[in-house]
């Protein structure tokens, strides 16, 4: 446990700007670890970490697992299917059983908002939220922030438009907290059916049309449109969504400046983002993924009680 961050990372809302900056600064030296021939430092040697994924995930789960392994932690992956959860075990019982095995940290992905906080309040181990329902996905926002900082050299004063299904997006909420705390201006753009009530009260600007977002922003963070939103009546069709809200190279060509393009993945090419944008020169979608590992190493390291500051975290090589 470290006073620098607290016991758990459930979201960016409870963090201060200084704590978020500390996480980003701590991620910097970890970037280099992944570029080494031997991608390992001993920082978390002897720590046991459970990756508890109640929802399907490729990118986030593997990113966490690499982060843990590159810090020399011992890791176990639990997927909901094929575990006691599929036999009807409650989250609190799962938590208590994990606790009884004397683990140090739990990384949890869960379909219900609040699940990470719920777990964190009931076990002594550190809990890291890898996405809870529609609430927060703090490590995704941190890697977005790091990527923005890499490209612009700052967060303060940037205009970032979060585009798409904000209503159902934990990525959007974490980004709104992280960006506003660090002094960026945040816009949200999407069909009104996919913008939550009172979103303005979080200090964001509503950009009604994607053209408005493109005119306004320095960077677009384009959210994945879940295909089931069409069945539940939030939008008429994916085709129409692409026509009205899709980020296309034609639309980007009318921008007053080059926009940085972010996407948390997985992408629906031809729906919220066209392939030539995703693969184009201003896309940082793959650098985001690279930064994801560094950011997660920083989170794990700091929660485990690691000392902030360059040279400390990434010091030493695994022999």
């Amino acid at each position, binding site marked *: 446990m470290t006073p620098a961050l607290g016991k758990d990372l459930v979201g960016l*809302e409870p963090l201060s700007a200084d704590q978020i900056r500390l996480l980003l600064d701590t991620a910097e030296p970890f970037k280099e670890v992944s570029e080494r021939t031997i991608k390992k430092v001993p920082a978390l040697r002897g720590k046991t970490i459970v990756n508890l994924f109640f929802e399907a995930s490729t990118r986030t789960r593997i990113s966490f697992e690499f982060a843990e392994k590159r810090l020399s932690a011992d890791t176990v992956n639990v997927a909901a299917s094929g575990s006691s959860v599929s036999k009807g075990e*409650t*989250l*609190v019982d799962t938590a208590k059983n994990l606790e009884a095995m004397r683990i140090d940290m739990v990384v949890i992905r*869960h379909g*219900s*908002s*609040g*699940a990470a*906080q*719920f777990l964190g309040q009931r076990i002594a181990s550190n809990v890291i939220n890898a996405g*809870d*329902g*529609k*609430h*927060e996905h703090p490590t995704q926002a941190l890697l977005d922030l790091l990527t923005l900082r890499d490209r612009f050299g700052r967060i303060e004063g940037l205009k970032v438009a979060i585009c798409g299904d904000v209503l159902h997006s*934990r990525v959007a*909420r974490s980004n709104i907290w992280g960006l506003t705390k660090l002094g960026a201006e945040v816009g949200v753009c999407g069909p009104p059916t996919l913008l*939550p*009530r*009172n*979103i303005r*009260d*979080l200090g964001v600007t509503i950009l009604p049309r994607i053209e408005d977002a493109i005119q306004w922003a320095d960077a677009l963070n384009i959210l994945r449109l879940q295909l089931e939103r069409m069945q539940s009546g939030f939008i008429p069709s994916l085709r129409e969504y692409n026509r009205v809200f899709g980020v296309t190279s034609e639309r980007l060509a009318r921008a007053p400046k080059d926009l940085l393009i972010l996407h948390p993945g997985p992408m629906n090419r031809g729906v919220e983002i066209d392939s030539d944008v995703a693969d184009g020169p201003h896309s940082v979608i793959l650098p985001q993924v690279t930064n994801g590992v560094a950011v997660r190493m920083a989170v794990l390291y700091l929660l485990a009680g690691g000392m902030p500051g360059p040279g400390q975290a990434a010091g030493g090589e695994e022999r």
Partner: protein
Amino acid sequence: MRPILIRGGRVIDPSRGGDGIADLLLEGDRVSAVGRNIGEPDGAVVIDAAGMVVAPGFIDLHTHLREPGQEDLETMASGAMAAAAGGFSAVCAMPNTDPVTDNQAAVGFIVGQAQRAGKARVHPIGAISVGQKGQQLAEFGELVGAGAVAVSDDGKPVMSSHLMRTALEYARTFGIPVADHCEDMTLAQGGAMHEGLVSTRLGLKGIPSAAEEIMVARDIILAELTGGHVHLCHMSTRGSVELIRRAKEKGIRVTAEACPHHFSLTHEACEGYNTNAKMNPPLREAEDRAAVREGLRDGTIDVIATDHAPHHYDAKEREFDDAPNGIIGLETALGLAVTELVDGGILTLPEMIDRMSTTPARIFNLPGGTFATGAAGDVVVFDPAVEWEVRPEDFFSKSRNTPFRGRRLRGRAEVTIVRGEVVFDRAKGAPNGARR
């Protein structure tokens, strides 16, 4: 049966505008006299009520007692005891039990169990539709014949406007109200809390106020169409209060209730994913709470009802989305009403008693609610000034699901009398057979 003489309390009887220091004499199961210096009959039980308020026992029009079907959460006996401890001499039991109270035998079972418990009266409410499935009308005549005092599909709304219309029309035959849980399911579906800033921040699906107001408006329109008496359960939004106010101005037969949690809390109580603040209708915003209070003050909302909804702690100890709706309320209602409404300058004590006893009796046509000579011997003696801390582990209810744990409240029932017999006396502790 010994006479009961309650001496020297502040006797408040809203039915007759009475409010002053007096004695109250009960003989048999009835009120015998109210007045100064009543002579003590032979063998009378004398209760010293100096500093206390003596009022007609409270009547809760909206209680979930869980028996039959979920006796681990509450039984008729534990619920009726919790009611008595809260100052209620009568509660109305909602029919969403397992099986549903949709036939005369089920109503008879409740009447029998309540008699065996011998605590607060339990008036059964029958289902509107068979199995509460929202399709076929239940046999109102049989239900009323067995003792039902109203009909409701509470727990669920009556989504079919045709069913609601026929229920209101048919209920006129028996002179009973049709109580509706107002919620447009197509709008509320999957919602876990009020739709607003807190739901947006917590990432929980919201239930917009409109989901309630649409059904309130529909029910008012149908009450006007049919001339039936619609009773609107647990009103929670500013819009609902405004709709009811206008309906009453037009003379439409609508009555309404509000719950202590809706006049005490807002959606901010859900912060931290507090499942004990999860209920349906959900806790709303400060302006809604203010409107509910104003509605209670000006009589737009007729009564205070608890929507007492027991749940096992396991069921609430889980993800917010998956936790059941509802809180227990019988043992905190009086304290919240005194603290929030009387101390808060919204209601006078006589007005509070009116909303909790006299008016509930009148609109559901129940015994009690008055100290008229010969009226039911149902009395609450409560201390309006005592301060106490809510400790759910001390409740008589079998369940503990309340968001008010640790709250300091003023006002607590000391003695509750039903049918001329003391069923609860705080000074004497738990009566025989009651568990705490």
